[in-house]
């Protein structure tokens, strides 16, 4: 729950921690998040370099992130120190996580630099981590929090609150809730001539969402740097799934998805001693989803309704210990165990429920050397995976050792310019859907491997000429995916195989500038740009020689905020260049490409004491675009929010 590193990062107002990081880190603080025209964590992630968000549109649409072309299943999603997992699909839908209580969002390429972590934190190709913060004890101010009400286009209402109370120096509790409702009916232009222009105006139907997330936290501070924390989190949502925009369709889809999720996690952390530090965590989570579809084609079912039910459970334990013999060396060892199961039940399935159970053990051994100029890190992760299934033979057991090495070096004594490099070899296990539940699952799927190589520079200028703040970084990388788990189509149904050898080369640039004028005006500018080339090199792959779908060569974002006393104005731009859809253009028989788009957003915020009011205009230019082909994004729309902070 307490990502304490957030407090340690700013030394003399500069992000030294991030500059020293051997594995690239990007951070959006709570203040920066408030300037991004964001409502959920996916909106924040769109502003990190190297990130492609696959946004299926609408307020309740699925949003997943892929880092440096590796795919959503390779991105670990971490909430308050514990990695979330979805063994069924391998992806976590980030639209579920509102930014209301979030105190910071980190993106780590490879893994976090802090080696006192659960082993699971070393087991993804990249990690997106977001956390909440319990206020420290202050005798004069024990109750804090906020109440917010947001409303916007398409019938959107989003009330939320947070109450955090420090009952004593030792005990603190907080409760929060975030509810959202929207009808999601937005107009868009459907181009029925993919070769040219022939637009018809349509309305997005069956795109409504109702959701509620509630959370309760308790912290018991045993002494300074030693605490136990407990979190319970509940999530409910019911939404329509509008599906792809199909030409000439006259009726809306009837697909609906209801999610009921719950998790509970308890953490113990002890950093009292400078030599020996440790943490233990335990987590239980339960994800239940129900999918329904009414279709005349299901004429033999009651009410012509198809019902698919899925229930996933996870039990997770982790322990990690770090030994620091002196200020330069640190060694850590972590041990994780998790048990994941999935039950499914459908009134149309002709394949019996496999009821897989996966036990995963992870052991990580890490070492680090740090001095003023040099940081070297290395770790070895051991993964053991054991699976059982109720029907037939389960997927075979897997045992793997995978390493990571990293280095960062300050080139000059006087200047904060560092060169850094890392290499990481990691894999992801096939999901339950891949193995057992696709039209035809395939139990002999091998894990999908990624190798990442990165070389980069970071530069922090503590006393820049014109600005108050100047930070930049540039990283060049080469990633290789082998045994890519790919859906293959055939008759009568589709299935999954390990086909695909993908080469990804790219470069991520980040620039952060700050300027204070007259002591009353503050200007912040964040820019990032990503260049990326992907190529499928597997001769057996149907996309051999093509670039990966939805990985644009050029993409970037810009974020500008200007604060003058009580008033704040901001502008955000998200840009993606031409990208491949994976489909073909029927006239040329060449790969179908999507045109570049720019998503412009602006806001104006006024603060008066504890109140603030924020008006936003999103997609200011009313651009008709989509991120995923035939999943249109809304045109110009509006949001207004009122926030009371205490």
């Amino acid at each position, binding site marked *: 729950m307490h990502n304490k590193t957030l407090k340690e990062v700013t030394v003399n107002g500069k992000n030294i921690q991030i500059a020293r990081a051997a594995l690239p880190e990007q951070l959006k603080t709570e203040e920066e998040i408030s300037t991004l025209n964001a409502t959920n964590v996916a909106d924040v992630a769109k502003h990190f370099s190297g990130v492609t968000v696959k946004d299926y549109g609408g307020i309740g649409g699925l949003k997943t992130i892929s880092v440096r072309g590796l795919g959503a299943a390779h991105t670990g999603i971490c909430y308050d120190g514990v990695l979330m997992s979805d063994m069924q699909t391998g992806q976590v839908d980030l639209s579920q996580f509102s930014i209301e209580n979030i105190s910071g969002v980190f993106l780590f390429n490879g893994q976090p630099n802090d080696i006192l972590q659960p082993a699971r934190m070393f087991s993804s190709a990249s990690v997106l981590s977001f956390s909440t913060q319990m206020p420290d004890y202050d005798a004069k101010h024990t109750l804090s929090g906020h109440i917010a009400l947001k409303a916007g286009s398409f019938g959107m209402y989003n009330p939320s609150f947070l109450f955090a109370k420090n009952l004593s120096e030792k005990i603190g509790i907080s409760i929060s809730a975030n509810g959202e409702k929207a009808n999601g009916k937005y107009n868009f232009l459907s181009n*029925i*001539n*993919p*070769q*040219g*222009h*022939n637009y018809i105006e349509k309305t997005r139907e069956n795109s409504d969402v109702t959701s509620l997330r509630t959370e309760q936290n308790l912290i018991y501070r045993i002494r300074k740097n030693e605490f136990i924390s407990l979190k319970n989190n509940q999530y409910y949502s019911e939404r329509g799934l509008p*599906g*792809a*925009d*199909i*030409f*000439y*369709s*006259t*009726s809306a889809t009837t697909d609906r998805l209801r999610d009921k999720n719950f998790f509970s996690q308890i953490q113990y952390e002890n950093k009292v001693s400078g030599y020996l530090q440790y943490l233990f965590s335990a987590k239980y989570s339960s994800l239940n989803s129900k999918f329904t579809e009414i*279709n*005349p*084609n*299901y*004429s*033999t*079912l009651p009410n012509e309704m*198809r019902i698919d039910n899925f229930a996933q459970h996870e039990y997770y334990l982790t322990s990690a210990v770090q030994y620091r013999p002196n200020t330069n060396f640190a060694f850590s060892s972590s041990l994780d165990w998790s048990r994941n199961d999935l039950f499914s039940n459908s*009134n*149309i399935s*002709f394949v019996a429920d496999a009821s897989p159970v996966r036990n995963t053990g992870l052991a990580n051994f890490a070492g680090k050397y740090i001095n003023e100029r040099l940081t070297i890190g290395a770790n070895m992760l051991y993964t053991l995976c054991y699976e059982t299934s109720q029907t037939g033979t389960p997927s075979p057991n897997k045992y793997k050792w995978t390493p990571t090495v990293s280095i960062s070096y300050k080139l000059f004594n006087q200047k904060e310019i560092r060169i850094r490099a890392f290499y990481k070899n990691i894999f992801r296990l096939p999901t339950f859907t891949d193995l057992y539940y696709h039209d035809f699952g395939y139990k002999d799927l091998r894990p999908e491997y990624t190798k990442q190589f990165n070389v980069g520079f970071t530069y922090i200028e503590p006393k820049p000429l014109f600005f108050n703040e100047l930070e930049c970084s540039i990283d060049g990388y080469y990633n290789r995916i082998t045994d890519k788990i790919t859906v*293959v*189509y*055939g*008759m*009568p149904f*589709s*299935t999954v*195989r390990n*086909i695909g050898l993908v080469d990804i080369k790219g470069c991520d640039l980040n620039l952060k500038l700050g300027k204070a004028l007259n002591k009353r005006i503050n200007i912040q500018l964040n820019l990032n740009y990503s260049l990326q080339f992907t190529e499928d090199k597997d001769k*057996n792959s*149907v*996309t051999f020689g093509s670039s990966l779908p939805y990985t644009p060569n050029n993409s970037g974002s810009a974020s500008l905020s200007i604060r003058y006393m009580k008033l704040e104005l901001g502008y955000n731009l998200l840009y993606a260049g031409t990208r491949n859809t*994976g*489909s*073909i253009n*029927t*006239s*040329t*028989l060449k*790969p*179908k490409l999507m045109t570049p788009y720019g998503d412009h957003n602006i806001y104006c915020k006024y603060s008066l004491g504890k109140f603030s009011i924020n008006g936003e205009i999103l997609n200011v230019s009313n651009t008709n675009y989509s991120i995923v*082909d*035939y999943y249109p994004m809304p045109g110009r729309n509006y949001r207004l929010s009122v926030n009371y902070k205490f």
Partner: protein
Amino acid sequence: MLITTVSPFLTSCDSGKDTQVKTPEVSAGVFVLNEGQFEKNNASLTYYDFTTGFGSNDIFLDKNNRGLGDTGQDMIKYGSKLYIAVYGSNTIEVVDAASGISLKSFSLQSPRSLTAANGKVYIVQFDGHVAQMDTTTYAIDKTIAVGPGPNKSVIANAKLYVANSGSFAAKDSTISVINLSTFSETKKIVVNLNPYGEMQADSYGNVYIVSNGNYSNIPGKFQRIEAGTDKVTDINIPVQGFVIEGDNAYIFNYSVDFSTWQAAAGTSTITVYDVKNEKKLNDNIITSSSVELTPYSIAVNPITKDIYLGTTDYSTKGKMYCFDSTGKSKFSFSTGISPSKTVFISKK
């Protein structure tokens, strides 16, 4: 005159320009309906002209300034028009066969297959119906219930036979027999489980159907329903798809490469079966190594007796191979994804 390979088709208009397209006019050639991929809106209509050797990758898009839609399921030529069932878009397109221009387009739930007789087009709908459409008014006169899950259909013995494969929930194993003059179902013939595959009739009134079983312990079958007696017998030949021309059934088959889920290289065959004498004439008439992708459909040009084998990889490409009636390679051309139906146009 043999043409071994075909130059790439003339490309259509540059994206962004609304200029008229340089597509050759239709004279003698072949239309290929390409299914496209589910929910990708990339069904298309290929036209290949015999005289010039050129054509259009998507003549429907060229001539109508709009795409064909999602999942082009079936196409027939009746009179001077092409009728196209676009399953994913739930539409029927009536297209002038001489130009490729759509004369009428209307919504109809889940159209799967088309047959025609006596000025009517019969549209099988997967939700369990057959609709009778008048070809002069384009109106649906009448709809009857069959099913569940009716897929392919064929007219023989002045009757309409519709194969009920079952819905997604439960597989069926019947063929609905419909009297065309009353347009009502008169009986159901029981065949093997899940008759989802190809269905054709010979000139003697026998109906042939491919069933898929339950994809595990109940295998698929190739069966004949005898004209008059409605007796069902098994034909012991593995069939992925087939077409009947005269007394010959041309049957294509292949082995699946388990690692790619496509046809294993060099295993695609065309078997010839004599429907009159009920015996196999030839195990394989083509050079299997010449077929690169997975076979998807087969047709025979009624005038030249050339065999057209449509092949695909299901997601990015398609190719049509033309063989003469002895199986010798003639030429090939690119098509869209999953060429599902081939229709021949002769010179006026």
